[in-house]
Structures are given as structure tokens and as C-alpha cells.
């Protein structure tokens, strides 16, 4: 009569406890989550090699912080994806700082972006790149909320937990972040057409 989800969480909790003290335990935890974390990073950055780097950085930070992890209702995933979201966001922030606004605009001009109402005009990878560029432009908190909610595979409650918010507050944050993302894409479109 056990709930499979509960049983899974129970097993995962035991695995986390083992991972604290045994390298094999952490390796097992890594193998359980590496594909999801890599997918998350790849969807956010669109670059396989960068996604691998971000995946490695995420698990390294998780390992270093594992002593401070406290088991919560959502299990290990929200905590791990919060780290991943921070890694991804920090990476894009650093990259944006290095490139500077002019370089970023120059790169953006390479893409024929139009969005929101004209998303259908953009095909395949270009459309996704437009979204990624829009994510780069909004504030880090909004970025984290959006990627945790829509790119991590976490459900709404788990994503809220990963953000440290209640589900209603998470919904509000995602709503505002979405509007900010929309404005960011429109702004980039405007600046691209100016030049």
C-alpha cells in the first residue's frame, strides 16, 4: 500500500544520506540526475559543451554544499535545480558582463529575431535562441523563476520550493517574469532594427 512516490523519496533520502559519506553514494545520485540537469542547462544555453560545464559545476557545488542540505518535502530535486539555476544564471551574467552591451547587440543582430506575436515567423533554433536571449536580458531572479518553472521539469510546487517561495508567490513571480521576458525580447527586436 506504499505510495510509489513516497517510496522513491524514501529511497532517495537514503541515497542522499549515503552520498554525504560515500563517494559511491554521490556517484549514484549524480547518475540519477545528470541527464535532467544537463537537459536543463542545454535548454537554457543551447550549447552542448557549455551545458556539460554547467552540469559539472552544478554537481560540484551540490557536493560541496551537501552537508548543508536539509531534506524537505520535495526531496533532493528542488535543491539541486536551484543550484543549477544559479549556475546558469551566474554564467549568463558573467558572460554578459564580459561581452558588454555593444558586443551583445552585435551578436543579436546575427539572428533574425521577432517574438511574441511573430514567433511563428521564426523557425526552430532561431526561435529558441530568441527566448534565450530574452532570458539573458531580464533580471536574475526572473531568470531563475522562469527556468525552474519551464525548463527544469519540476512541477510548480517543486519549482516554488526551489525558489524558496510558496506556490502562489511563485505564480506571481513567474507571471511578472514572463512579462519582463516579453518586453526584453521586444526591446531587443527594436534595438536590432535600429541598427
Amino acid at each position, binding site marked *: 500500500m506504499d505510495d510509489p512516490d513516497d517510496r522513491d523519496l524514501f529511497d532517495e533520502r537514503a541515497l542522499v544520506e549515503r552520498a554525504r559519506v560515500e*563517494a559511491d553514494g554521490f556517484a549514484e545520485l549524480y547518475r540519477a540526475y545528470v541527464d535532467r540537469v*544537463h537537459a536543463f542547462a542545454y*535548454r537554457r544555453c543551447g550549447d552542448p559543451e557549455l551545458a556539460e560545464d554547467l552540469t559539472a559545476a552544478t554537481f560540484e557545488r551540490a557536493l*560541496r554544499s551537501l*552537508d548543508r542540505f536539509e531534506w524537505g518535502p520535495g526531496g533532493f530535486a528542488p535543491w539541486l535545480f536551484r543550484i543549477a539555476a544559479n549556475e546558469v544564471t551566474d554564467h549568463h551574467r558573467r558572460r554578459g558582463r564580459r561581452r558588454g552591451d555593444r558586443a551583445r547587440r552585435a551578436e543579436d543582430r546575427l539572428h533574425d529575431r521577432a517574438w511574441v506575436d511573430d514567433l511563428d515567423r521564426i523557425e526552430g533554433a532561431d526561435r529558441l535562441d530568441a527566448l*534565450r536571449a530574452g532570458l539573458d536580458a531580464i533580471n536574475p531572479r526572473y531568470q531563475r523563476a522562469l527556468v525552474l518553472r519551464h525548463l527544469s521539469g519540476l512541477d510548480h510546487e517543486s519549482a516554488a520550493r526551489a525558489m524558496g517561495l510558496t506556490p502562489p508567490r511563485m505564480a506571481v513571480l513567474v507571471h511578472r517574469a514572463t512579462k519582463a521576458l516579453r518586453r526584453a525580447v521586444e526591446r531587443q527586436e527594436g534595438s536590432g532594427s535600429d541598427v
Partner: protein
Amino acid sequence: MSEDPHPLDELGRSPVPRIDESASARIESGLRVLHSQQRSTPQRAGWRAWLVAAPALALAVVVVTIALIAGDERGVAALELRGAENVVIALPGGAVVTDPPDGYRLVEGAVLTVGEGGRVTIDDRVLGAGAVVTVEQGVLVTDTVPPLTVDGPPGTGPTSSRSPTTVAETRRPQTTAAESRAPETSEPETRPTDSPAPTQEPRDPDGTLTRPVDRPPTTSAPSTSEGSRDGAGEGVSTTVRPRDGGRDAGDGTG
């Protein structure tokens, strides 16, 4: 959701290539190494703990320092004497200070006695003749030793009492050691020789006038009253006797 799909849903559903097996294995081996290093260097947790503990420690040091300074101010800056007249201070080390100058500060454990006709101001507190105070933990404590009553002759009866002034002076004989005040009266002279008053003998023959006043006066044996007087006489030679004490006795006999 169907009527307003989020633009990122498409990104969230977009196909993702699997992580390269060799890259994944490389990450895993790196994590294993890091894990073993972490286990072998547990001081990292200590380092983080220090990050938290250091501000608390600094705060504690500040608080303790302030407390010490405040304590010093209470215990040293206070208890300053002015206008000391006929004042004797017995210091904890055994030294005796007589009529200290203005600005003299009482130290911990000092016992100050104001002699007859004397007075002194300690900070804002004026003490008159007979006052006996002690410095305890930086605070001036008024001596609470009960007044020593000395029986007068039978005619005076038990109602003949001494004022606290008298008591204050009689309880401090060892500090004066006859260095500043000559004896004026002796206890045996005031004692009725025809009345043994066995339970009221205040002194014993071995010159225990130097003992504290809170010593029960009934310790000396009544049968040695004569010897006691002799002993008291010896003690008198080195002890300040209260003038009013003699007067009391004189009143009693008169």
C-alpha cells in the same frame, strides 16, 4: 494553459541531446575525487563555522570589554573619599590608612570606620561617626553586625545600650593597633566587679579585642572574670576604646 501557452514551454519541451558519455564519466570521476578530498579535509566545515562564529565572537569580546570598563568605572572611579576626619581604613592586605586625603579611593575589601566625631564623604554619601562600611564587589556595604551591647553595672540594667557609633568603633580594634588613638577607657573599668554577668563577657584574656565584634560575647568563661579583666587591660593598651562607652559605664555607675 492551452489558451495561453507560455513561450518557454516550447523551450522546455525542445529535444535535448544526451550528455556525452565520456564527458559524464569525466564529471563523475572528478566528483569522486572531490568527495574523497572533502571527507579527508573536514576542516572546510570548520572554516565555514568560523565565518559564522567570528562575528559572534567579536561581539562577545566587545560586550565583555564594555562590561569590564563599566565595572571598572563602578568599582574604581567610584568610592572616592573626601573630607575624611577621624577615619581609619583597614586594607585587605592588613595595612591601615588613617585619615586618607581627598581623592583616595577605596579598594575591594577595604573596611572603613569613622571614629568618634569623624566624618567622611564617599562619592555622594556622607558617613558620620560610628559608621562602618565595607567594599564588597565594588559596592559599599554598610556593616550589618548587630550592635555590641556592654553590660553596665547592675544599676544600669540591661536597658543601658550603646549607639551604633559605639559599636562601630569597638568592632575595629585590630586596625587601629593603638597607633593613632590612645585608650581612654577600659572595659574592665566599666564592668561591674560585683556582678559576674557571666553571659555578657565580651572579651577573653588573650587580648581578643582584636577579634571581630560579631564574635559572641559569651565565649569567655565567667569564672575567669578577674583574669579576663587583666586580659582586657592588656588589650586596652593596644585598643581604641570608645569614649562614650566609658561614659555609658560611668553613667551606670554614677
